[in-house]
């Protein structure tokens, strides 16, 4: 198997032997320990590649909520959920990608996230142009896919430093971004460029007339002999038509006299996101590497909120960021710190403003939702061979403090497994 990281190995003579051995090991380890930005090519290997991942966690909190999790000050939806105390299956996925020598590519993925249901997360097909000159890959795909505009938005818990999604992904993208659409991207030298057109099945958009999402993204991934960088970002526009928070079901229980509930509040309007992602991975010594990754989103929402009797105009200016410094040592251990914060500003106007603010979850007492956590991962089993097959088995210890709709801190211990194999297809 040819790991994508190997494509960015240094070629200059200086430090070649040490650097190659360090980065080869790091490249493999990074596939589990490093952020996704270190694997930027997105090229599909020729033949059939099967990969699987599993992540489970036992947590001390938070206690299950009676109603869907609501970050104060942000319309939510999609699959934005807090983890629950006890045992959870955070991630189980099986993915297959195929590339014919003609350039035809296809992929499919079965997965389960934080619940017992198994879904077809990806099913796509397309064409990938052969490499040549500065062009390292170029592809056009269509079908149900994970978005590529952010390197980390769809990272499975078996690969992520933490078992739970970031506040930013939960609030802006309903936990993750997976939709049906068309994706075109190319990697030209150190640049990755792409555009995606989505039909709007995923939050914050809605499907059908008046809905949908579009995004463009660009990343620059330079590297030196001892450091790798990624700097880039994305622009996303989405439209929602009569969007409701689908996490809310009809089996509601009313403990107050209010008849206006969040599941009746609908949003009709658009959102624009500007995201910036930056990261660097650098060697501190032959066996120790450090990373720093950060992401920043500026978002603007403008539309109308209404229920059966109320109407209000909503303008929202949202900012979110997370920073994640980490250390990787001995090739199989990592310590990661994560801090994230949301700044959510809403202006509601019109007759229904007062009536809708709380049912919509937009009431905010002037506190920025935030969370922080520390994760330690150790992979005692780390198979690496010349064959196309590899597998990893590790544990994760994590501590998380969240102050975003709930206030809690909890610890978790989890099991991580990943495996991948590649097959030649004639």
């Amino acid at each position, binding site marked *: 198997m040819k790991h994508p990281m190997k494509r960015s190995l*240094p070629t*200059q003579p200086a430090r070649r032997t040490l650097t190659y051995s360090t980065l080869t090991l790091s490249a493999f380890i990074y596939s589990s320990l490093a952020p996704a930005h270190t694997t930027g090519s997105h090229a599909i290997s020729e033949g059939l590649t099967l990969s699987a991942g599993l992540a489970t966690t036992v947590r001390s909190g938070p206690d299950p909520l009676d109603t869907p999790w609501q970050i*104060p*000050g942000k319309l939510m939806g999609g699959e934005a959920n807090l983890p629950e105390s006890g045992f959870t299956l955070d991630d189980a996925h099986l993915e297959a990608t195929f590339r014919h020598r003609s350039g035809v590519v296809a992929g499919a993925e079965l997965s389960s996230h934080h619940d017992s249901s198994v879904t077809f997360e990806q099913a796509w097909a397309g064409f990938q142009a052969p490499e040549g000159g500065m062009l390292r890959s170029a592809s056009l795909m269509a079908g149900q896919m994970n978005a590529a505009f952010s390197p980390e938005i769809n990272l499975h818990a078996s690969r992520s430093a933490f078992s739970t999604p970031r506040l930013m992904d939960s609030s802006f993208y309903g936990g993750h971004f997976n939709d049906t659409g068309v994706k075109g991207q190319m990697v030209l030298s*150190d640049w990755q460029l792409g555009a995606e057109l989505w039909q709007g099945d995923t939050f914050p958009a809605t499907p059908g007339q008046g809905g949908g999402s579009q995004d463009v993204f660009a990343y620059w991934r*330079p*590297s*030196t*002999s001892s*450091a790798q*960088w990624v700097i880039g970002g994305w622009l996303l526009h989405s439209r929602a038509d009569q969007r409701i928070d689908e996490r809310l079901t009809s*089996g*509601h*229980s*009313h*403990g*107050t*006299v*209010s*008849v206006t509930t969040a599941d009746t509040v609908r949003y009709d309007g658009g959102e624009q996101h500007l995201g910036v992602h*930056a990261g*660097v991975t*650098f060697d501190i010594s032959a066996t120790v590497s*450090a990373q*720093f990754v*950060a992401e*920043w989103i500026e978002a603007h929402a403008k539309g109308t909120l*209404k229920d*059966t*009797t*109320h*109407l209000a105009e909503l303008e929202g200016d949202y*900012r979110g*960021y997370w*920073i994640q*410094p980490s250390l990787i040592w001995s090739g199989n251990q990592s310590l990661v710190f994560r801090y994230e*914060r*949301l*700044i*959510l*500003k*809403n*202006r*509601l*106007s*019109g*007759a*229904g*403003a*007062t*009536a809708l*603010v709380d049912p919509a979850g*937009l*009431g*905010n007492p*002037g*506190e*920025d*939702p935030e969370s922080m956590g520390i994760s330690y991962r150790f992979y005692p089993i780390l198979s690496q061979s010349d064959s196309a097959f590899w597998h990893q088995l590790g544990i994760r210890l994590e501590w998380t403090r969240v102050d975003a709709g709930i206030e809690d801190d909890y610890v978790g211990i989890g099991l991580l497994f990943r495996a991948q194999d590649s097959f030649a297809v004639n």
Partner: protein
Amino acid sequence: MKSGHRLQPGFWAGFCIFGLAACSDLSQTTLDSDGKIASLFAWNIPDDVPLPVEPESNPLTQAGFELGRHLFYDARLSGNGTQSCGSCHLPEKAFTDGLPVGIGSTGELHPRNSQSLINTAYNATLTWANPSLRSLEQQIVIPLFGESPIEQGITDGNRDEILQRLRDEPRYEALFADAFPDEGDPLNYDNIVKGLASFVRGLVSFSSAFDRFERGETSALSASAQRGRALFFSETLECFHCHGGYNFSDSTTDRSQTFIERPFHNTGLFNIGGVGDFPADNRGILEITGDPSDMGKFRAPTLRNIALTAPYMHDGSFASLPEVIRFYAAGGRNITEGPHAGDGRSNPFKDGFVTGFELEPSQEQDLVAFLESLTDTEFLSSSHIQNPWTDAP
């Protein structure tokens, strides 16, 4: 990037950290309710309850309310001088009369029960079953001038005489002048209607034991009432679907609303002949709309002060709250004999929420205790809504 570049990872990482920290800000949500809290009247309504709608042609003022109070309790405002609005809407009975159906000034029976006037300002529609009656100014002309049935009995033949009675009352000159300061001769029927509407509109009540409990006074409700509250808002009993919201009625409107819902419900009181019929003189909004599916549909009244407003239902057919609860527990009423015989439980037009439920006797008592907690004794005993003529010389 090529090897000649000089990127210092540690420097840039630190720069980003400080940059992010420097950009710290505070979340906030601001509301502009579009002037929806403006009023000339001291509503005395809790902050979490929106204000009622005031018509532009008759904004509520204290002077208008006071004029209306005098008119409301003045029997001279009837054809034969024997009946005031307050004759059928007594404050001690939460502005009902305790009778199954109302009785007009000439003794004619109204086909329907006299409704409470508390929080009428929030009604999406007025009376028991008229989707077209949207304002108190529209509604009040019916008891004043209606001929079928006759209530106040004001006719073309006596209207001038009645007006003269009011002119002869010394108090009214100042009351009308205060309420309508821009008019030279404000004592006319248009302003009488406006005055009456102002008084009724100002009868708002949100100070019951239940309200105090909801605002955090945990001792305001007895343990039994708290259990009844849980039952009331449960999906098992479904009460709150039609009697929910701050006014305990789904037919509620206020200034925050842009779209007005006007729901009506058939609760299964009758099923004459097994075809869904109601008595010929009391068939709900069918009488207005002509739509056969509207048979037996009536507006869900507020349950505020409900313990004082017996008998219940649009025809006053239940004498007590336990009777009403048992009726809903049965999912309707089965009349086995007589001209109205029929099983209301299977009325084809019955509301989907009236499906019946089972209650233990103690639970029935809890539910009654909760309904009794909706009585606002503070408001009903306050002097500003009482009959002003009792101290007349």
